């Protein structure tokens, strides 16, 4: 049994950069690499792709991320744990085996399933958001439970080099190898809490090394263009040292760690995952060297009896149109354009959202800069049941070229299919994780 393991996080969201994971694997001396690539909505979209082609439905960047990573993982004997399976972990595992065969690489890949609970859903379950039955939101297209470390442990036991999951709570991707390597007692919730703290700190990758943090005036971060992703050295007591590969950009400080510790945490005294209810409030964050932060003091309590399930539903179509104005009276002309649009189509679109980018599109109105900007961009958006109605938004904005204020330029129009997400709870006894192993 090891007394210390090193886990790196090479991706913190579906669209993350590819290079940092390669650097981590090549130079980071990792035992494990985690790639977290699955947002709530991503899995619902993936489910739709799988409906069209049953061999698809895994992360669309799977091949792009792994093509150069595979040989490095083998060379450095680093095991990969990723949720890039999305709606089809088995399909993803088969694809990875196919890629390995092409490169003459011999590996074992495990696919973890069981998160897809669509078959258990009746539609009458009440949403956690507002108590309405979930079938009142729209046609339900997916239902995926957040699995915990328990789903990953059996796959680790097979000695698989690569473990591909669908929906798993992000910190569980990190907690599983800790429990596996240290043989932690699964009822020692204090240990599970500590491991969850470390997983939560790493799960957004660059967000702890200076990404989503840097401000050149108040929080300068060096060499952002080569931002490195983090790794943690975890010991058998669940304490960890977070650092990054020497020579990469960014910085890890008490400040970056504090921001990430609290990121997306609804209640810092009780952070609920499938594995544990973790208490983040007494975490100790200590700088022990440049870009080296020692983490201890996490706590934990018994895991919940229900698992959260993300339910995806068809929510219609979003229509968006944009056009810009600059120079003298830019703001006034932008406001005139907004008024024209409101009068032309506002009666048909009760939820029409009209903003001026550069003036009031991001923050509540009363905080907006009262001085006149040199340029503004009108943005009009509406959510519609029918695609044809959503298209009208962009068409009307584009028509402002010849039917609106002077000097309108750069009009663009978009229509997006919208997948909504609501959550329900499901008795965890109903959910049975499984795994399959494939070898190249």
């Amino acid at each position, binding site marked *: 049994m090891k007394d210390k393991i090193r886990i790196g996080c090479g991706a913190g969201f579906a669209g993350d950069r590819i290079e940092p994971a390669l650097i981590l694997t090549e130079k980071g001396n990792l035992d494990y690499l985690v790639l977290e690539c699955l947002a*709530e909505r991503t899995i619902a979209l993936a489910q739709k792709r799988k409906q069209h082609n049953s061999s698809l439905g895994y992360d669309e960047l799977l091949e792009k991320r792994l093509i150069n990573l595979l040989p490095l993982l083998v060379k450095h004997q680093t095991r990969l744990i990723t949720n890039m399976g999305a709606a089809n972990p088995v399909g993803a595992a088969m694809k990875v085996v196919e890629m390995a065969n092409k490169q003459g690489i011999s590996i074992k890949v495990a696919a973890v399933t069981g998160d897809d609970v669509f078959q258990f859903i009746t539609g009458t379950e009440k949403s956690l958001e507002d108590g309405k039955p979930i079938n009142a939101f729209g046609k339900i297209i997916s239902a995926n439970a957040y699995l915990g470390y328990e789903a990953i442990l059996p796959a680790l036991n097979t000695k698989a080099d690569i473990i591909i999951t669908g929906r798993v709570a992000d910190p569980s991707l990190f907690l599983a190898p800790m429990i596996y390597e240290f043989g932690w007692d699964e009822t020692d919730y204090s240990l599970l809490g500590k491991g969850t703290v470390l997983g939560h700190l790493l799960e957004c990758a660059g967000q702890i090394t200076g990404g989503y943090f840097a401000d050149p005036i108040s929080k300068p971060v060096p060499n952002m263009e080569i931002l490195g992703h983090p790794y943690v050295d975890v010991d058998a007591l669940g304490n960890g040292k977070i650092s990054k590969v020497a020579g990469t950009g960014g910085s890890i400080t008490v400040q970056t760690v*504090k921001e990430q510790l*609290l990121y*997306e*945490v609804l209640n*810092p005294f009780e952070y609920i995952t499938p594995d544990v209810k973790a208490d983040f409030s007494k975490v100790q964050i200590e700088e022990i060297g440049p870009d080296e932060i020692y983490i201890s003091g996490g706590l934990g309590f018994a895991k919940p009896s229900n698992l959260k399930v993300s339910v995806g539903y068809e*929510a219609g179509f979003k229509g968006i149109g944009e056009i810009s104005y600059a120079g003298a009276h830019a703001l006034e002309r932008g406001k005139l354009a907004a008024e024209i649009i409101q009068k032309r189509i506002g009666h048909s679109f009760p939820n029409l959202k009209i903003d001026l980018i550069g003036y009031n599109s991001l923050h509540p109105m009363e905080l907006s800069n009262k001085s006149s900007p040199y340029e503004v961009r009108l943005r009009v958006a509406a959510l519609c049941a029918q695609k044809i109605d959503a298209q009208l938004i962009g068409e009307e904005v584009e028509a402002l070229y010849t039917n609106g204020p002077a000097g309108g330029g750069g009009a663009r129009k978009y229509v997006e299919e919208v997948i909504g997400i609501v959550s329900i709870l499901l008795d965890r006894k109903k959910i049975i994780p499984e795994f399959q192993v494939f070898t190249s």
Partner: protein
Amino acid sequence: MTRKLAEIAHSRAGDKGNTLILSLIPYDPLDFDLLVKKITVEKVKNHFKDQISGEVIRYVLPELKAIQFTCLNALSGGVNTSLALDTHGKSLSYALLEMEL
């Protein structure tokens, strides 16, 4: 002379569905007590009256020297169906820091 929160603290915004989560962390830990005293739930609610239509919960974290605000019904439905430009509300940390002390 009025000071903006941005001069003494930093913040990160996160989202869970229609809930906005804002951390508030003083650069100097000695300013923590001042933040606890001054940046109340009422002040945050008032500052964001056009943004947040639900309850605001404040968690005071003396060991971390940080405050967390969990704001319900704050993101026009949330990332998936919101019509806002910034559907996640990621830029709203800097809206909090615009608050005057």
